């Protein structure tokens, strides 16, 4: 019995002092503990994760402005080899996901294939590569007539991955993935807005990100005590939030009306919202976003 206890103690001491524990493992363990501490946290995280809009919505808006495709806005697939931790991989998976959506909307099939391959590699490293059927996607990318199917499959894939990560108690990766995707969409919008000064729709979209940033900060706050990387990211995004301080969003509620057309209830929204944001606010947000993104993609 004494030998057994001594053995257990020795194993415990060795486990605690093991110098071989990788950064990724420590990251995963710390976050797994956070998740296990409260299912309530996990439920709330999932609720918020579901409400963050798809970056695809912004890509469609950008194309609508008439602005041409510009690969210089995106994170180059050549940067893939820089991402050696799960923290960086998850953030950049989100960034590349937004970039893929942007290339898809602009029907840039060659770039799309490169981004798809990069995403597949990152996903493999995060043990979620099984969700990407490269042959199907490559076939769809090669023909612009398949744009709807391509958008559908890629959106479904990312939704499935998020769901899978949540069921595997790896929601923290979903949070990072989503944060990276959102930041990239904001970055591209800011760059397009710079080339289209005075575009009210773009300005309103940038100002409206204040609401989404609040939700992302709330998500990251669940992990701030368990992981230094996520605490650091939270701190940087809180500074980004300060650059939104002067942005005001006012809303007026009016009951809506509707009519039923071909079995669909078509609502007429009588409510409205107004976003007040200055060029100076936008410049501050752009500078801050560039700095945060540069650290993530480097």
């Amino acid at each position, binding site marked *: 019995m004494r030998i057994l206890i001594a053995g257990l103690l020795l194993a415990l001491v060795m486990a605690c002092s093991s110098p071989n524990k990788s950064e990724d493992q420590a990251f995963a363990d710390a976050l797994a503990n956070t998740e296990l501490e409260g299912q309530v946290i996990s439920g709330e995280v999932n*609720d918020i994760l*579901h*409400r*963050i*809009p*798809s970056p*695809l*919505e912004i890509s*469609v*808006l950008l194309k*609508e402005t008439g602005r041409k495709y510009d690969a210089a806005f995106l994170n180059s697939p050549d940067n893939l080899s820089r991402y050696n931790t799960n923290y960086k991989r998850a953030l950049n998976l989100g960034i590349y996901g937004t970039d893929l959506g942007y290339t898809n909307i602009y029907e840039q099939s060659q770039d799309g294939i490169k981004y798809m391959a990069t995403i597949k590699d990152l996903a493999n490293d995060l043990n979620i590569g099984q969700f990407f059927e490269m042959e199907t996607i490559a076939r769809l990318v090669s023909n612009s007539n398949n744009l*709807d199917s391509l*958008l*559908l499959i890629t*959106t*479904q894939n990312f*939704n499935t991955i998020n769901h899978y990560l949540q069921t595997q108690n790896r929601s923290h990766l979903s949070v990072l993935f989503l944060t990276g995707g959102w930041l990239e969409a904001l970055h591209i919008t800011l760059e397009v807005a710079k080339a289209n000064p005075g575009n009210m*729709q773009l300005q*309103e*979209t940038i100002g*409206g990100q204040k*609401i*989404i940033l609040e*939700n992302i900060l709330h998500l990251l706050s669940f992990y701030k005590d368990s992981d230094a990387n996520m605490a650091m990211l939270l701190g940087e995004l809180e500074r980004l939030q300060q650059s939104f301080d002067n942005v005001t*969003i006012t*809303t*007026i*509620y009016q*009951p*809506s009306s*509707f009519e*039923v057309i071909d*079995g*669909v*209830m*078509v*609502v*007429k*929204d*009588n*409510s*409205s*919202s107004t*976003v007040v944001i200055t060029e100076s606010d936008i410049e501050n947000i752009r500078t801050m976003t560039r700095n945060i993104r540069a650290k993530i993609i480097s």
Partner: protein
Amino acid sequence: MKKLFVFVFSVFVLSGFSSSAQCNAETLSTQCIPKLASGFNFLKTYKVEKAGKEYVEYSYVFTKGTQYMINICAPDQNADGIIVTLEDSDRKKVASSKVDDQYISAIAYPCNKTGIYYIRYTFDDEASYCGGSALGFKR
């Protein structure tokens, strides 16, 4: 004893089969995607399973200038009894799919106010409802 064991085992297995056969909300929500009207890009699917709950609720940030569509699918092609209600961030009603005792299976909402919206599915009686739903957008 043997008969008792066979009986208990059969009940256990059959109840398992029947509960899984009762509701496959995931499949139903996937079936909802192609039913989004032409021009809408798919965003999300939602499982709508009563399972003892009074309602099922999700939320999403809608953007001014974007039109959204939410539809409902049920196993027998008839979503009667499942009501989807859209509420804004202050919980004020924007739309409900039940009108004059009629159940409408899709809502198109051209958003004029950016913010969090709540998509709530309720059920009209005690029946065991099961369905799926899809959210799409277009500019």
